[in-house]
């Protein structure tokens, strides 16, 4: 019989797969010639496997109390939503574009994501129904309705959300909302004939709006109204809605 000294710690580590390869090999080679060693290891293994399936019937995830959000970050502090509501909306808005639930897409910029979605041609059909947003974004609905754009796409992006809106005349607009611990920032807007972008941070949320070939006045009206409503969460005034309506123009593409 091999007189290899194997401590209890070594044998337990061996059973747990935690022994360095050289030491594990020495245990294995000793097993064949040491029945007592084999019994010790077998006992340890049975103790381990007996506990491995300690309890298989786990309860479901608890339902969050009313007015309690999935608090990814303080972002949602100002906009409590029930996880059930969020979940229901998610079911109601299956992504119609490319599957973005990959770690690779998490690295893409909002512009990348917008172009990826816009180029696939999705959104030209009917919008998913029921298309609605959680309660805390009710301020957004009338704003976007006034634009004439329909919500056609929704997907996760970088722990936030990518919403895609399409219009009857080739217009596509992306709205990105994600948690952000940075201080509130002013509206930053860039207008170019072929690319329009706006961004701002408010109440723990960062917004990006992107469109291509949209009339710059129309885009600016949408962005400024969305910015204002994201800050005060009040319904858009009739004047604001009228401005957005008046700015409707086909996109150049």
């Amino acid at each position, binding site marked *: 019989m091999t007189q290899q000294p194997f*401590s*209890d*710690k070594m*044998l*337990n*580590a061996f059973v*747990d797969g*935690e022994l360095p390869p050289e030491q594990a090999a020495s245990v294995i080679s000793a097993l064949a010639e040491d029945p007592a060693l084999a*019994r*010790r290891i077998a*006992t*340890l293994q*049975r*103790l*381990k496997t*007996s*506990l*491995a*399936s*300690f*309890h*298989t*019937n*786990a*309860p*479901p*995830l*608890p339902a*969050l109390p009313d007015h*309690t*959000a*999935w*608090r*990814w*970050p*303080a*972002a*949602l502090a100002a906009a409590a939503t029930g*996880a059930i509501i*969020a*979940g229901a*909306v*998610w079911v109601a808005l299956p992504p119609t574009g490319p599957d973005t*639930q990959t770690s690779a897409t998490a690295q893409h910029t909002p512009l990348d994501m917008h172009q990826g979605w816009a180029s696939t041609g999705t959104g030209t059909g009917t919008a998913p129904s029921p298309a609605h947003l959680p309660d805390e974004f009710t301020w957004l609905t009338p704003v976007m309705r006034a634009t004439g754009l329909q919500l056609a796409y*929704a*997907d*996760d*992006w*970088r*722990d*936030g*959300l990518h919403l895609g809106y399409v219009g009857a005349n080739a217009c596509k607009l992306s709205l990105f*909302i*994600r*948690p952000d611990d940075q201080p509130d920032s002013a509206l930053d807007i860039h207008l170019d004939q072929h690319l329009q972008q706006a961004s701002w941070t408010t109440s723990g949320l960062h917004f990006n709006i992107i469109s291509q070939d949209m009339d710059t006045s129309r885009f600016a009206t949408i962005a400024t109204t969305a910015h204002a409503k994201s800050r005060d969460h009040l319904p858009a005034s009739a004047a604001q809605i009228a401005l957005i309506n008046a700015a409707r123009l086909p996109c150049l593409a």
Partner: protein
Amino acid sequence: MFTQRRHHDALLALRRRLFGYACALCPNLPNAEDLYQDTMLRAMQARNVPRDQTALRVWVFRIMRNLWIDGLRAAGRLPELTSDDDIDLQIALDRNDDLTVNRLAVRQAFMKLAKPHRDVLALVDIAGFSYAEASDLLDVPQGTIMSRISRARAALALCLQDDDTLIALPRAQGRRFTGI
């Protein structure tokens, strides 16, 4: 937000092991269910959630363990978390080379172990953590985890041998089922 789906899915994947850990820590099923629910609620409402899956798993189990410790502290039972027992498995095995390892008996014996032993065995055998992960979660050196595991399994073996009220295989022990 919608992206909580990823968070939600990650927690779903941890349910069984997390509940198993709760059952290992708590004296009874209702307590385990309460600990599990409280842990999940806290994890679901957290502001800063690790994105890495491994880090997330450690983070969730740490939440549960901290809640468990808080409960012990509130009940004045925190000293039970320390254990100076040092049992040599070889000695335990020498007393009965044919130690019967009946799965149900093991589980019953496990619940009779001291809390520190249940804690470390639950992390490695029930929750499936590596020694490195358990070391991180308990904030102790990896060598300490090795020692604790060794002592815990020795204690478990001794408990199986010593307690004839545990269910044993009729074939091996020749005793009637007595239960606990």
